[in-house]
């Protein structure tokens, strides 16, 4: 609750900053201070210090899972601010408003990771989506950005409509909005009507997490949006949608698992195949990253297929590992002059440190041992093996991971083994230090995943 209230308040503070403060570095500092404060307050909440005792009528349910995920999301956003806040200035003049929107999104993330009512789920998803439509189109002079924003808005609102339709049908069948009571009401077998509602919900949430065949918006939107915001959209927000997806099915429909498992399994297989195969053919690193984010979404979907304890741990861990690595790569990408693979040629000679940390991020995304990405993929596959019965899906997932190594290593190849003159805008020491911290975190989590996962068992 602390995080929800404070992030909304700080969003308003940022709005006032935009009205009264002209100095950009003050605005930036206010935003970063806000995020630090949010993290502290949230961790206090995690440890039992609640500033607000509000009777939520059981509409919000906080447990270690939701607390831990919100903490990861806030922590990642803080790192993202530290790395990329300066680059937001280049997008447009409404710097403070961008920060305000991101604070509102954080509020939405805290909501979707702790909802227990379909009403809150809807509000949370919308609080996340609407600011994103705007951030996508924030580069007003750029036609591509405008197109991406409009496309995202139209398709996003359509999928919200589908979600509402699904909720209506489920409400009609169970007579309640509370997810846990839905589980009680529909515990043995989902009647056909509720099943239709559930499928509609799955469709719209698959859209939000960009799972195939609902992924068509992703490359265009991620490519068209200003790179700074793509970084945020592709990582923290996507992970939050996954948490919502998982939470809904875990609390509400775990007993009727057998009825919808196959649908999710097919969506997962398609996502893994389409994401990985299309990413191979991309020439631009930014576009490659957007397809790779679809492929990574496929891996996260495995947790929803298997629906067991490993999957739960794995999803949290995957969210952290994936967010950290992708934020890092995007932070470097934003600084590059040329977004194609050729643009990275010879970076290792010019900026050895940045090339080295980028290599670590890439290896983590590819799932090479000793990085967080390996442990994340390991947990996901383990949960599925433990569940049993989906051998074909495991094979597709492993093949997908193998293919992904190819396109991730192309980036390393360009940086280390190709001659070229990679051009980069000069970076500050603080930027390098933050990148170093990110890389260190990734390796630390890769070696000792328990550091993070222990908090799940508070």
């Amino acid at each position, binding site marked *: 609750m602390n995080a929800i209230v404070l992030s909304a308040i700080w969003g308003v503070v940022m709005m006032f900053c935009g009205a009264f403060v002209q100095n950009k570095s003050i605005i930036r500092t206010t935003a970063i201070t806000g995020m630090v404060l949010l993290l502290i307050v949230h961790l206090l909440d995690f440890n039992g210090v609640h500033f607000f005792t509000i009777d*939520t*009528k059981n509409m*919000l349910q906080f447990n270690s899972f939701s607390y831990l995920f919100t903490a990861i999301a806030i922590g990642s956003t803080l790192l993202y601010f530290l790395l990329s806040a300066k680059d937001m200035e280049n997008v447009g003049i*409404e710097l403070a408003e*961008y920060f305000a929107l991101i604070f509102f999104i954080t509020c939405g993330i805290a909501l979707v990771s702790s909802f227990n009512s379909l009403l809150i789920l809807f*509000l949370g998803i919308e609080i996340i989506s*609407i*600011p994103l439509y705007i951030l996508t189109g*924030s580069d007003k002079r750029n036609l591509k950005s405008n197109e991406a924003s409009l496309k995202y808005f139209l398709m996003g609102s359509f999928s919200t409509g589908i979600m509402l339709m699904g909720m209506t049908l489920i409400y009609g069948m169970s007579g309640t909005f509370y997810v846990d009571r839905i589980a009680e009401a529909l515990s043995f077998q989902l009647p056909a*009507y509720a099943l239709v509602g559930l499928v509609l919900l799955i469709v719209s949430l698959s859209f939000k997490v960009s799972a195939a065949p609902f992924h068509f918006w992703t490359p265009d939107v991620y490519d068209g949006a200003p790179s700074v915001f793509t970084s945020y959209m592709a990582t923290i927000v996507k992970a939050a949608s996954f948490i919502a997806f998982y939470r809904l099915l875990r609390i509400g429909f775990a007993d009727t698992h057998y009825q919808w498992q196959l649908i999710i399994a097919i969506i997962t297989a398609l996502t893994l195949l389409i994401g990985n195969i299309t990413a191979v053919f991309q020439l631009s690193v930014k576009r490659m990253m957007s397809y790779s984010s679809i492929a990574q979404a496929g891996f996260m979907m495995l947790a929803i297929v298997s629906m067991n304890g490993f999957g739960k741990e794995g999803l949290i861990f995957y969210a952290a590992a994936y967010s950290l690595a992708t934020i890092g790569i995007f932070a470097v990408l934003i600084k590059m002059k040329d977004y194609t693979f050729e643009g990275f040629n010879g970076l290792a000679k010019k900026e050895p440190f940045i090339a080295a940390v980028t290599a670590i991020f890439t290896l983590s995304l590819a799932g090479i041992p000793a990085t967080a990405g390996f442990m994340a993929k390991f947990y996901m596959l383990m949960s599925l093996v433990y569940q049993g019965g989906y051998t074909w899906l495991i094979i597709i997932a492993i093949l997908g991971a193998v293919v992904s190594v190819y396109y991730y290593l192309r980036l390393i190849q360009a940086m280390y083994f190709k001659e070229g003159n990679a051009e980069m805008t000069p970076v500050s020491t603080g930027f390098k230090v933050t990148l170093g911290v990110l890389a260190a975190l990734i390796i630390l989590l890769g070696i000792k995943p328990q550091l993070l996962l222990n908090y799940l068992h508070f």
Partner: protein
Amino acid sequence: MSVTEILFYSLSAMAIGSALLVILSKNPVHSVLWLIVTFVAISGHYILLNAQFLGIVNMIVYAGAIMVLFLFVIMLMNLSTHKEAKKNKWLQMAGVLSGGLLLLVIVASLKGAEQATLVAQTNEGSIGLLENLGKTLFTDYVIPFEIASVLFLSAMVGAVVLGKKTETTKS
């Protein structure tokens, strides 16, 4: 047949008929006008369920404000019937197919649905009355109510961000 039933069936026929006309009429302005009829019919349903407030709000907000916006947009864009973009035939077929499938599934599940135990209380019941609505909104549903304000605030900030004139920077 009681008066309520007659009203219910005629309102339903009106809603479905005008909804069909919305998608069938070629002229976009006609579509919007039929949409207004649909909304009026649905408002009638709300009033039949003794939810007067919802009925009136539906009328004011949807049939009033939003429809006016729609009409303005259509008139500003000057959509004429001739300029309709040619659609891909395969795309059309795929659309018909998937829409038909959805219809089939929904109808099939409706057939299988058990008779609901809670029957809609037409012309009686006080759930939809303004007083009860206000009480529930500010006691049981106060959290979503407050959270919705964050949603609107962010939408408002967004509208300002997108709509504000970019000051031409020196240089």
